[in-house]
């Protein structure tokens, strides 16, 4: 009954009928949310505060696509914050990487704040062909290094992409694992190896 177009039309109609603008609704919604959550476990109310990237990326279909300048600004902002390992080695152990990719714990109010987080990569991506339980929110990463090689430049790209995906894709759905302190430097190195090591099941 409702096509995507008529859904947008409804949003416009409702906004027109209402006394407030979309921006007003956005502000009011943010304000309402801040009062309607309680802190629990490691999840404090500060998590509801948006940084510039999150605020710019909270877009509804009615807001239209992100314009090229805004996208470039978000990508530059996020690329500037990427921190590579001080020791210089970007590849870790793909076996550890596979464990990190399989684990979905970390940062929830039900999680132990002292325990390491996982990357939960299989939630969204196909990786090792042996793992049938993979999601499709992100593209398949099977054979990642086969088509791209595993040289220095590719290692730097993969490391940075996991550290902060929005350095390359503004408003990506993928979490900013390094920047937001979800994964450690070593964990990101292990995941980089999972994708680029020729011995990794991803590439066999």
């Amino acid at each position, binding site marked *: *009954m*409702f*096509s*995507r177009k008529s*859904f947008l039309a409804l*949003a416009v109609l*409702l*906004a027109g*009928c*209402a*006394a*407030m603008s*979309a921006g007003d*609704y*956005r502000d*009011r*919604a*943010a304000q*309402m*949310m801040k*009062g*309607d*959550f*309680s*802190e*629990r476990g490691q*999840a*404090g*109310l500060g*998590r*509801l*505060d*948006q940084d510039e*990237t*999150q605020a710019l*990326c*909270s*877009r*509804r*279909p009615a807001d239209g696509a992100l314009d090229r300048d805004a996208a470039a600004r978000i990508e530059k902002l996020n690329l500037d914050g990427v921190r590579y390992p001080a020791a210089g080695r970007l590849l870790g152990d793909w076996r550890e990487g596979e464990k990190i990719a399989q684990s979905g714990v970390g*940062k*929830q*109010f*039900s999680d132990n704040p002292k325990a390491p987080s996982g990357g939960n990569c*299989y*939630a*969204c991506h196909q990786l090792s*062909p042996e793992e*049938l*339980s*993979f*999601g*499709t*929110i992100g593209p398949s990463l099977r054979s990642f290094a086969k088509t791209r090689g595993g040289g220095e430049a590719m290692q730097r790209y993969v490391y940075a992409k996991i550290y902060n995906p929005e350095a390359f894709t503004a408003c990506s*759905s993928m*979490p*900013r694992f390094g920047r*937001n*302190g*979800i994964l450690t430097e070593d964990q990101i190195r292990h995941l980089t190896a999972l994708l680029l090591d020729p011995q990794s099941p991803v590439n066999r």
Partner: protein
Amino acid sequence: MRKGLVAALVVLALGAGSGHARAQSDADTLKGIEKYREALADDNPADLWEARGAELWAARRGPKSSSLAQCDLGKGPGVVKGAYAELPRYFADADRVMDLETRLLHCMVALQGFSAAEATRRTFGNGGSRSDFEALSAFVAAQSKGAKMNVSLEHPKERAAYLLGEQMFFYRGGPHDFACATCHGESNKRIRLQDLPNLTDAKDAQRAYTAWPAYRVSQGELRTMQWRLNDCFRQQRFPQLKFASDTSIALTVFLAHNANGGVFSAPTVKR
């Protein structure tokens, strides 16, 4: 030339073979999930909650020693049939848009004399520790089975709730930068092997929303929309959503209205 052609054909066949085997195992996995869902559908422990809910609705309880039989769920005092399919809605006596659980809380306070604190001491059940809201929700929802979702946005507060809920649905936050839309804003995606409904698409929204409340086998409990939203936010790495809060109601208005036209089938059984 001929050897090369044969070799190429062999490579092609092997390539197609392994691709076929992979596609086959993917299809087998999904078929296995379908069979599991069929086996689950044989009977529904939600019936136990529904029976308990019917008792709670009729029982005289609280300081006023009164039942919920006169509770107005939007279609008149005591009218339960079809009520869930029209919720959330604006209630003049509270001057507020309310979903089912908020309205039940309102009636527990107004009719039965409970304080809000007493009534919400246990909102989500856990084993021996039971939630009246879950039982009552199962009872009320079952009385809307077969009805078409029909959430109105006529009242200005209902319209405002929808637009606020929409903003909240796309609100990115927390250490993972997740919004509801991150998982539920695109069609034909899945997380691991769990299909994700696109809640901004009418067909997906209808199918998803009309299946709640539901008996979640993995929880061993009957779970409601308030629980569903709370647990989504937990997985989004947000803090805890307050029960019967304006935010929970606004999001429910957004989801329920998007499901308008869908045939209500809850309480269902889910993994």
